[in-house]
């Protein structure tokens, strides 16, 4: 691999690692807000226990999310110094405001976790709301920088020098709204489906008390409603995102769909492999006219094909597969959540075990959807770092040693993934929900995630 590829691999792996924790860091507090609200409305202590236990899990996840976020933030400057030189001059504000949002989250997270017993119910809700708000705002602001990379505005490059800087135009680049909504709603959806997974897993286990089943059913229902609603929203917004691509990044849409020739009545190819030699998608299913409709809401919309662009500026063609995985997972999750909701609450039938098993997979599926979506969006912009402005090879570092660092970071990520899963499991095994559900609240010495004093 050359230096550029190594830099991209190292950064991509770090992002892929961070995204797991960052997404859950946005999605879980969103669910905690719902649980806290339900507790205030229904006064059922199950919701308070749900909020408490989710927060514990979230606190552990945050222990990895924060330093891994620090890593990707700093690594941008280390691996893509050419890119950051432009970023600093044009789109520094969202990075800066992201820090404010993050400080807000960190401050209220500590307040919510370590001062919970000293807070009034109102202040409790306010603090968990600020945690969720800070997390969501961070996601939006970082996405803002990502949106700007796809649809850069607010500056000109003259002989390699940045001129005519307009920070406001850079912040409100055309793809900001659709992209930010897509990231937010898919993160909320993932948080909800991870809850669904855990609840379904617990419901599969035999020999629990009725109260425990009720408790897990409440979690399942809350997760399914939030997850179902947001997966539907994500899909609708994904449609808007595709139209944004049609408008602003036609070669990315063409590569996503494996379309080589510009045409109206363009077909939508599902699965298969885009073959640059024959100029078609091999082994896929074609839905006639559908791509034109997707891109412009009418069948005679002309969709640009890859052949309009010089081949060295094509995005890699495997993004067709990434795009398909993301879309198929999204559709599956909509079907699954609404199917189960109807089965359980309209038809009033009990959930068979095979359906619960399917639900267990929803969290992992959702995370895979998130990962493929991000990789699609970032590799789909290649060979550009800043679309039509800066090539990745001009942005990447020219220092050596990347191979060593790549090995080092990847091994640490692998170890930490394993350890985090182990610690989460260990913690919740030692603190089973049956203890929390017991009538007298007893306080064990090692109750908190926080204090070991």
């Amino acid at each position, binding site marked *: 691999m050359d230096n550029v590829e190594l830099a991209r691999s190292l950064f991509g792996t770090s992002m892929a690692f961070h995204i797991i924790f960052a997404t859950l860091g946005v999605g879980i507090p969103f669910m905690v807000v719902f649980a806290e609200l339900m507790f205030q409305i229904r006064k059922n202590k199950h919701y308070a226990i749900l909020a408490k236990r989710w927060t514990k899990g979230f606190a552990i996840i945050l222990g990895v999310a924060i330093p891994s976020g620090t890593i990707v933030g700093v690594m941008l400057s280390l691996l893509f110094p050419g890119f950051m030189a432009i970023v600093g001059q044009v789109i520094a504000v969202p*990075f*800066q405001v992201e*820090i404010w949002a993050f400080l807000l989250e*960190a401050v209220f997270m500590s307040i919510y976790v370590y001062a919970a017993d000293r807070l009034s119910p109102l202040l409790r809700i306010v603090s968990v709301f600020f945690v969720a708000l800070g997390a969501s705002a961070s996601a939006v602001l970082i996405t803002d920088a990502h949106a700007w990379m796809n649809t850069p505005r607010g500056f000109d490059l003259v002989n390699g020098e940045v001129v005519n800087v307009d920070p406001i135009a850079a912040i409100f680049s055309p793809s900001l709204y659709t992209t930010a909504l897509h990231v937010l709603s898919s993160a909320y959806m993932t948080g909800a489906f991870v809850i669904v997974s855990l609840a379904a897993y617990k419901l599969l286990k035999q020999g629990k008390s009725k109260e425990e089943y009720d408790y897990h059913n409440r979690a399942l229902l809350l997760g399914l409603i939030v997850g179902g609603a947001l997966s539907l929203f994500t899909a609708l917004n994904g449609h808007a995102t595709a139209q944004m691509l049609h408008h602003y990044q036609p070669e990315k849409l063409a590569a996503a769909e494996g379309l080589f020739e510009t045409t109206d009545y363009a077909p939508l190819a599902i699965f298969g492999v885009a073959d640059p030699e024959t100029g078609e998608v091999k082994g896929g299913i074609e839905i006639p006219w559908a791509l034109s409709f997707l891109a412009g809401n009418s069948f005679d919309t002309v969709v640009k094909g890859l052949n309009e662009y010089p081949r060295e500026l094509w995005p890699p063609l495997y993004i067709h597969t990434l795009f398909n995985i993301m879309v198929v997972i999204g559709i599956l999750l909509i079907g699954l959540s609404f199917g189960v909701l109807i089965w359980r609450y309209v038809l009033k039938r009990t959930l068979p075990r095979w359906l619960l098993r399917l639900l267990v997979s929803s969290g992992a599926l959702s995370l895979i959807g998130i990962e493929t979506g991000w990789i699609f969006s970032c590799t789909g912009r290649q060979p550009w770092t800043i679309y039509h402005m800066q090539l990745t090879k001009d942005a990447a570092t020219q220092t050596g040693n990347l191979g060593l660092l790549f090995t080092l970071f990847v091994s640490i990520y692998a170890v930490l993934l394993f350890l985090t899963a182990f610690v989460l499991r260990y913690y919740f095994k030692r603190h089973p929900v049956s203890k929390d559900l017991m009538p007298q609240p007893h306080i064990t010495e090692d109750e908190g995630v926080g204090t070991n004093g």
Partner: protein
Amino acid sequence: MAESSIAILLVWTLLFVYSILGSVDFGAGFWGMVYGRSEVTNAGALANRYLSPTWEVTNTFLVLVVVALVGFFPKAISMLGTALLLPVSLVLILLLIRSSFMVYAYSSKKYGKELTIVSGVTGLLIPGLLVAVLPISLGGFIDIVDGVPILHFGRLLASPTLWVHLGFGLSTELFLSALFLADYSKESGDRGAYLLYRKAALWLGPFTLFFAVITTYTMVSEAYWIVEAIENNVLWFIFSTLAFVIGYTALLWKPANGMPGVPRAAFTAIIVQYAFASIGYGLSHLPYIIYPYLTVEQGFTNPNTFRALLVSYVIGLLILGPAFYLFWKLFLKDKRYLRQE
């Protein structure tokens, strides 16, 4: 004042605040490890009680420093980013291990001891490594080859100035955190822990001063310019030393109520000491960010972005000010939190 001067002042202030917060944070992790398992003293538990709610905020400050540098001095970050790839990557790895193992340790009693050792030791190394950026910025270790800044890692490792800087970072970290925790234990009314941290601070104080003085004598020939500049700004360093003397002796004052030392006065005076020294050092460092390749003026961003950033700072402070006040009241002031058993 020129806009670039305002910007470097802001970055320097953030760096100063982080160096204090980071020293206390990483140092507290170390003390928590040392005293954590002791049956006789509560000192470890106290360090952890401070650390639990604050480490996330402190960590965010580190990112704030980097982001401020990216926004205000994008050319500096692109040069530093290239040159410092290896050392900063090491810091990042240590940081990742430190934070995650700290949270793991909180979550698992059984393996707590081993996990705390990992987070305590990695945390101990981080400030030392961060301080290593200082000698690098002074010249002699970066060459620009074909427009690409290259750091001579071997030359750096072989140079005594690096090790003295590391010693300075390490002793400062331990000294500041011991001093802070002495004050924190007194606020919590824990006499035993207080005396322990006071003793540690008394031992460590002279080392910080020793290393600070020694650094100027170990500078490589390329960095002599800063020694001369420091001599021109010597007044700040005299004030700084005076503040140290006041702060250090404050630990020995005997107020009427019996417990020796006034840690609040000591900590305040030592912060003033570091502030004076930072101002003197900062003034001596001007106009360079990275000697001799980049001055403050050359690295500065464009005025439009600068103004947009300033607005974001004002808004950020307005929103975060009350939040920080609440935070401070709940964790550094509230007796119910400080005195829990």
